């Protein structure tokens, strides 16, 4: 098991280098020409441009730039933003707490709502409640998150005046609620559908019958004996989502003016701030890979038949 964790963790390194390489190359493939000029605009002073180019080593051969870039990553140096001249890593880390908070809140909401709705739907399959939850989750999946966000803003802040319409509120919980729900609802819908189908697969299994025959209460039969067996696909969905969300929920952050990574990335793209784009992409990928690693390891805790060797 320990060996497996180590091996998996080491595997993360080449994956990230691969991603870094791709982002590095994409800059040259998609944006021929001088990135500094592009990001500084048409009318930038040629001297400034030259200065930045020199400072960033953009006149060096590609392979040297690449080596410097990858080498820098290992030292935690993601380069400097073209626009703000700040280290990219600092900018990313500054935004990360807001994104992480939103991602975790949305994930918790999706687990609480999604798993319970999924369980009820499976246990009472084809009942009114089942149809109700599944219709609702279909809505959740097909409804664009910005639209739901706007509806929430209209209802809860404009009409009822209960919660702020946007902003970070220096971290106050009140500001978190609406964006977390807008984002979490959609995730909850996916989690609910996965929980339902996965539960339906185990609910008729012989060992569930055995659990009932032991005299256990229905709650214990369902939660302890059925759910634990149904959990792996559900955890996979939750983990994948969390991985994405940690990279920043672009639309939700825009609708709610949430100062997260998503908006940082969008701004970076709009301003052609290549180091910043690279930095956010690599950071996102790292989050994604790490969450997936955790998900992978959780399988072994859930199902003893899964061996890591």
């Amino acid at each position, binding site marked *: 098991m320990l060996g497996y964790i180590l091996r998996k963790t080491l595997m993360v390194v080449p994956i990230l280098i691969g991603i870094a390489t791709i982002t590095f190359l994409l800059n040259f493939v998609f944006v021929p020409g001088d990135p500094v000029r592009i990001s500084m605009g048409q009318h930038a002073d040629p001297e400034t441009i030259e200065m930045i180019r020199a400072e960033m080593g953009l006149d060096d051969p590609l392979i040297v730039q690449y080596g410097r870039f990858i080498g820098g990553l290992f030292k935690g140096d993601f380069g400097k933003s073209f626009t703000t001249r700040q280290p990219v890593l600092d900018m990313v880390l500054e935004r990360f707490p807001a994104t992480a908070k939103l991602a975790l809140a949305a994930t918790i909401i999706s687990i609480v709502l999604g798993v319970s709705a999924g369980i009820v739907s499976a246990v009472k399959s084809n009942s009114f409640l089942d149809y109700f939850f599944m219709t609702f989750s279909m809505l959740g999946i097909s409804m664009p998150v910005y639209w739901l966000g706007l509806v929430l803003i209209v209802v809860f802040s404009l009409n009822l005046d209960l919660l702020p319409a946007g902003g970070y509120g220096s971290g106050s919980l009140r500001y978190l609620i609406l964006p977390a729900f807008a984002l979490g609802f959609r995730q909850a819908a996916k989690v609910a559908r996965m929980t339902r189908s996965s539960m339906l697969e185990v609910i008729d*299994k*012989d*060992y569930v*019958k*055995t*659990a*009932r*025959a*032991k*005299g*256990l*209460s229905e709650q214990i039969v369902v939660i302890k*004996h059925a759910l*634990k*067996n149904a959990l792996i696909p559900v955890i996979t969905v939750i983990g994948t989502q969390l991985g994405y969300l940690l990279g920043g929920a672009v639309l939700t952050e825009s609708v709610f003016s949430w100062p997260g990574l998503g908006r940082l990335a969008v701004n970076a793209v709009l301003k052609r701030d290549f180091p910043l784009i690279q930095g956010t992409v690599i950071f996102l990928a790292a989050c994604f890979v790490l969450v997936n690693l955790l998900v992978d390891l959780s399988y072994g805790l*859930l*199902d*003893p*038949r899964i061996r890591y060797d």
Partner: protein
Amino acid sequence: MSSTLLEVKDLQTYFFTDRGTVKAVDGVSFDVEKGETLGIVGESGSGKSVTAASIMQLVPSPPGDIVGGEINFKDENLLDLKMKRIRKIRGNEISMIFQEPMTSLNPVYTIGEQISEVLRLHQGLNKDEALEKSIDMLEKVGIPSPEERVHEHPHQLSGGMRQRVMIAMALACNPELLIADEPTTALDVTIQAQILELMDELRDEFNTSIILITHNLGVIAEVADKVAVMYGGRIVEQTDTVTLYKDPEHPYTAGLIKSIPKIEGSEGKLKPIKGTVPDPLNFPNGCKFANRCNYAEEKCWAEEPDLEEVKPDHYVRCWRWKELDLKNESEVK
């Protein structure tokens, strides 16, 4: 001297499906005395499992429903009890073992956790006491090095071992009645014999009554005191084991006896009864066995016979039992 532990009276369990009503169990009655083993035999679909599930109140509902009858266990009719009381009985006073040992244990918990669970639930043991008792039980059912096995997961055990674990779990709380639904069908022949022997030993040790369900009369012969033969949701013949083998009165029973594979016999060939069980959605009006019976006559097609006591404690559901001499048929050929 014996006293009745379980009395099933005119049990009716139906399934209300989209395609119609399946009368899976229709008017089944039998008694089980203390320390006695009742065998229930019949082909696939005859209602054996549904009968067992009805006693445990484990009939999936919907679509199933116990629509009539009584199940008197000691001095209570189980059908009148609240769910809370039923759960106290399940796994404690009445236990059940299922056909598929490979899938009847929960793959994500250890053997010890699964046996302990029932002990902690019904006997209020703490974790350590329950584990210790689990090891005792594993030892009783003949699992080698139980102290280690108790921490293993089901996938680390063979089918025969898993069925022993199921038996250990079922007997952990020393139930008065054990319902074994085809406990050996999924196992190979030598393991089958071992498991049956084990059940027999444990019955003697704990004085547990057993309902043994199987489609194999050969299995019944080894352990049952009396036998109920089911066909199409009904009992068609019921008597003590010796009489049933020596002197079957129902053509279906005779057919079943003929189909027992005889290991040491001269031909040792299986002779399954020809034809198939009628569609439960579309049972005929007359005797349900008529389409397969060599002796069917007009009356058989027209009207279903009642279960008749032909000799003391020997019940038969056949119009022609008196005229037919099935003894020879089941012995010879």
